[in-house]
Every structure is written in C-alpha cells, then in structure tokens.
C-alpha cells in the first residue's frame, strides 16, 4: 500500500485545542493577521454583491451623505446656523464622511456574526475577520465619497490647509474607533438577542452627540463640552474637518479621542474573545 513516502510529513509543533479556563484573554491577533487575505475576500464579496444588486452601483456610497448634506444645508439656510464661515454644503458633507464611516461600520459589524452564522458553524477562521471586514467595506464607501468631497471643495473653491498631510493619522484613528465599537457590538449582538434592535436608535442619538451637524466650537457650556470630549468620535470628526477645511482646534479632542479609543479597542478584544469561545454554539 504505502510505497511512496508521505508528501506531507507533519513537522510543525502541534496546535492545541483546549478550553482556556475562565480568564480574560486576547484573541490570537497573529493568527488573525495570517488570515488577512480572507478579510479582503469577505469585504470584496460584500461590495461585489451590493453593487450587483443596487441599480445605482458606486453612487450608492455618495447618496447617503449627499442627501443628509442637502437636508441640513436647507435647514442651515432657513435657521441661519453657523457653519464656521464655510459653505454649509462643504461643512456638512465633510462632517458626514467620518461619521458615516463609523456608523455604517458599527451597524454592519454588529450584524456580521449573525449574518454569517452558516460560515461560523461550518468552518474555522479567526472570527475577528468578520467585523473587521465589515469595516473594510465601509472604508470603500468612505473612499468613494471622499473623492466626491474633493470635487465639492473644488466647486466651492475651498482649498485644503497644510494639515491635510495629517489626514491619514486622523482617518486611522477613525478606523480604530470603528474597530473597537464594531468588535464590541458584534459580540454583544450575539450575546444579547435584543441589542440589534437598539443599535440604530443608539447610533441616531450618538450622531447628535457628535459635532457632525454643528461645530464643537459652538458648544460653550461646561457639561455638554465634557460629554462631547468623552465621545471618541468628536476628535475624529473635528480632526477630519481640521485637516480638510482648516477650521477648529481639535488637539484636545483628538488626544481624548485617542485615549478613549485605545481603551475601547482593548476591552473589545477581550470581550470578543470571551464571546468567540462559544460562538458557534450560541448562534
């Protein structure tokens, strides 16, 4: 029977599958990194499917911020709201971009585990890939509408300041914030069946607590300001506007945001790992 030598002589040290006990642990991030190709595959799948189904295709990414921008521009013009001396079209669209990156990341990450339960119960891969891929999908929309923003700025003759060069850092912070809350929400949605009903409502409230449709500089009272600075999205949105339009002084908010985000991201990983252990049984 066995004439040929085995072509797959196993040499690597064995992988151990065992219960880890009741301690809080981090997920195996190195392994998740090895599976990074799968992340792009999932993201590409979602994008491809969406653009195949949606008649308007790529324009889909722009429609949502565009409509919000138009609606608020009308409101701003009627109610003569302050937009930091910028054309309201540019001000609102610019604020909507980082916010939509965050909110669509969190809401699709929240659904990602439940939506892919067929996969989770049939094949192994690091589960972190799923919420992370949801964020990658949102990033593609972000990129499309970013190009649209540049066009809008050109049309209104708004020249970006020199701190545009810092934009990747601010966007990176935005992605980390989205990852942290995305991991938390995906795990909570699995653990508690009713969380998914709360998510849209919560994101709606959150939008009003973030200086997207107003400028943080317009908030003077101590308490609302403190709350605003606790919100990690404040720094991201303010920072984004600062980089693109040169308004505001977001250093304090950015620093607060970075600290909160690190805390949220770290805790989300521990909680995710805890839920991941029995994920396939709980779905």
């Amino acid at each position, binding site marked *: 029977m066995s004439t040929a030598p085995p072509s797959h002589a196993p040499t690597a040290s064995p992988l151990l599958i065992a219960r880890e006990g009741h301690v809080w642990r981090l997920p195996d991030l190195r392994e998740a990194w090895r599976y990074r190709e799968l992340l792009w595959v999932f993201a590409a799948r979602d994008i491809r499917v969406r653009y195949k189904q949606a008649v308007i295709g790529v324009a889909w990414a722009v429609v949502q911020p565009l409509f919000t921008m138009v609606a608020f521009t009308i409101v701003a013009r009627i109610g003569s709201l302050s937009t930091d001396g910028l054309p309201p079209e540019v001000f609102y669209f610019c604020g909507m971009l980082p916010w939509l990156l965050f909110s669509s990341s969190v809401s699709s990450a929240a659904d990602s585990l439940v939506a892919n339960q067929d996969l989770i119960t*049939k094949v192994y891969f690091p589960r972190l890939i799923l919420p992370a891929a949801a964020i990658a999908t949102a990033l593609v929309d972000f990129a499309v509408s970013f190009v649209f923003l540049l066009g809008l700025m050109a049309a209104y003759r708004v020249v970006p300041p020199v701190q545009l060069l810092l934009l990747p850092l601010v966007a990176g912070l935005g992605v980390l914030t989205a990852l942290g809350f995305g991991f938390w929400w995906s795990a909570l949605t699995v*653990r508690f069946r009713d969380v998914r009903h709360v998510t849209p409502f919560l994101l709606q409230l959150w939008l009003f607590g973030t200086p997207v449709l107003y400028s943080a500089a317009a908030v003077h009272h101590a308490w609302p300001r403190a709350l605003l600075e606790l919100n990690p999205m404040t720094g991201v949105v303010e920072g984004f506007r600062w980089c693109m339009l040169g308004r505001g002084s977001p250093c304090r908010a950015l620093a607060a945001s970075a600290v909160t985000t690190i805390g949220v991201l770290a805790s989300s990983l521990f909680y995710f790992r805890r839920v991941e252990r029995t994920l396939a049984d709980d779905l």
Partner: protein
Amino acid sequence: MSAELALVRASGVGKLFRLHGDVAGARTTLRETLASWMGGGKRRPKTLAYWALRDVSFEVRPGEVVGIVGHNGAGKSTLLRIVSRITEPTEGRVEVRGRVGSLLDVGTGFHLELTGRENIFLNGAILGMKRAEVARKFDEIVAFAGTEAFLDMPVKHYSTGMYMRLGFAVAAHLETDALLVDEVLAVGDAAFQKKCIGKMGEVARDGRAVLFVSHNLGAVRALCSRALVLAQGSVHFDGATDAAISHYLTHVAPSGEKDGEILFPPPGLTFGPLAIHAVRCLDDAGVVRALFDASERVRVGLDVETAGGLRGLHAVLRVSTHDGETAFQSAGAIAPDADLPPGRFHVSCAIPGGLLNGRAYVVEISLETPGSHEVAPRRPYVSFAISGAGGLGADTPEAWPGVVRPRLDWTVGRP
C-alpha cells in the same frame, strides 16, 4: 519515523451544552440580564446542561482513514466541530499537527449572487487557501466539478447537483494534513459519490489522514481502515472497521440486542398464549452472526413456546433498513390447518444470498392468526448488515441505490 506521530490526538474531550429555558446556547436578552441584575439574580432563567461528548480519546495517524459511526445525537458532529476548531471543548484537549481542512457541508460560504468563478475563490479563501493556491488549481477544480460552461453564471441558477459538485471540488483540492468529512457524500449522484470517495482515498495514500462521519455503513466499510463507534457522547469501540460496524449494529443499534441475537429470559416475551424466547440471525453453519457477505444466506430463527391452540398461526417477517424503508415482507405458515400442540418449537426463514444490498437491516416479526389478528404485534427484534462483497460492481465502495440488490439472470443473445 514521522508516521508514528499522530496527526490528531484527542484526550479526554468533553463538551457541555447549556439550554436556557427552551433557547439553545447562551444567547439571552439584555433586558432579562439587566432585570436579573437588578432583582439580585433571583429570576435567573432555568438552565439545563447536558454532555454532548464525554471523555473522548483517540488518535489519527498519517495515512489513516478513520470512520465515525453512531446514531443521530451520539456526538459525531460535535466531535468534528471540536477537531476543526469551530467550537471549543469544555474539557480535555485535542492536539493537531499540520493543517486541518473540514468539509462539514458542501459549498460553505457560497454566495448565490456571485458567479461560479467568484465563488471558487471565495470558498477557497474561507477554507483557508491562499488566492495564488486557488488560482493554481483553478482549472483542476473546474474540471473535477464539470461545470466549465457555467463558470460566469451566478450560482443561484445552478442545479443542486452542480452546486454540490463545485463545492466539493474546491474543498477536495485543499492541501491539508487532515481532512474532516461529515456526511457530504449523502448528496449527489452515484458517479459523483464515487469521485468523492476516490479523492478521499487519494488523500490517505498521500500520507495524510481523513476523519469521516457517515450514516452510510457501506462507504465507511469501503473507505476506512478503522472506525470509532460513538454512543451517548463517548467512544464505545475503536478498532478495525468490520469489527466496529458489527459492534455498532449489535451493541449500539437496537436495545437489548447483542451480536445478531436477542434472548428473553424465562418466561420469555409473552403475548397471551404465546411466548418468544429468542430471535437470532444465523449463517448456514448455525452460527449466530450480525455481519454477512452479500452472497451468503441469512437465516432468521425464532424460538417460540405456546400453550396450544392458535389454529392458522403464521409468522410475518419484515426486513427494513435503518431509515424505516421496507425491503420486503414474507409470511410463513406455522400451523396451517390444525391446532398447535403445547410446548416449544423453532421457526426459521432463510433469506437467500445475492438479494440484499450492502447495508444494515432490521428484522421485524409479527405472529398472526387468520383475520389479521396479531397475537404478537410487529416489532423489531434483531438487525444485521450485509457487506458489499461478491459479484459485479461489488467493489464499488458507495452503496448501490435501492433497498435490495438482487442477483438476477442476465442473458445475452443475437437474433
């Protein structure tokens, strides 16, 4: 030598499942959880726990194809899910050397809106293949599946057969050290099943290992060198396939039955004026057995005692498969036109060789008097299995279709 190293080694593996009320798993609502926190944990939902697996230990060495047989709910799928890392064990550990590929379902992660080509890459990536690896094997995968013409069509337009073939083709080209396969062969036609089984044999000859869960005892017998019998979450038997299957059929399958024989201690299984003492499956030499070759005759013997009377008593034998499909029914007169004398007697029925298919059968018996009056109502007594050997097409490992596989007279002539 590397062949001495186990590819998979499970030691003391156990899996505890919790049921919350009637909801499986730990999923509860936030509302309930908050309410129970505020109420000091008084209104905690009832939890029910049960061990799906307990103290399971085994090894799989390179080049081995190990079958896992057992009833539904015996823990087979849970075991595969633990070895493939889909879920964690509650206790014990599994050591795995090298890459493990699991094939618990065909077409895992296929997206209906995407084309065949897109799904090959998607499915490959989900199973753990690099894009370059899939690209390298792309033509081979397509050829194996036989779906060249439909590559750029969304898989939602595929027939079930095409979908299954494409799914298996991707998984079959995964380069793994151990392959876990669950029931996938139940789908698809005979030609496709043959292809799948051939592929699994290839994997084993390569020095890799296969762990194969199936209800198809014929496929397990043809493919596996060794088999585990799982019952109530623990390993009942671990050994050569034939021995494992006969263990499964005799110890695990129907209750009270042992090695093709069931004995009722005195006064026997009584039905009014009649008592059954024993039911047996015997070969021509009169030896009790549970496993027969397809060419052998199977005798079903019945030890009965009566108080007399019962004019017109006859026995009805029904042979059916484990899924409850009847293969045939046959009646034999015991007392055609006279009363029976009191005392014990023996009834036997011979099922000819070359009739039954290579699978497991259950023997059901009833004893009746004219007017369809059942003295002893029909119930299953013993079971036996036919191994696939003997005759044309006998070495095909997959089960032939049909509950019987009669050897018929074929003639060829010229006009």
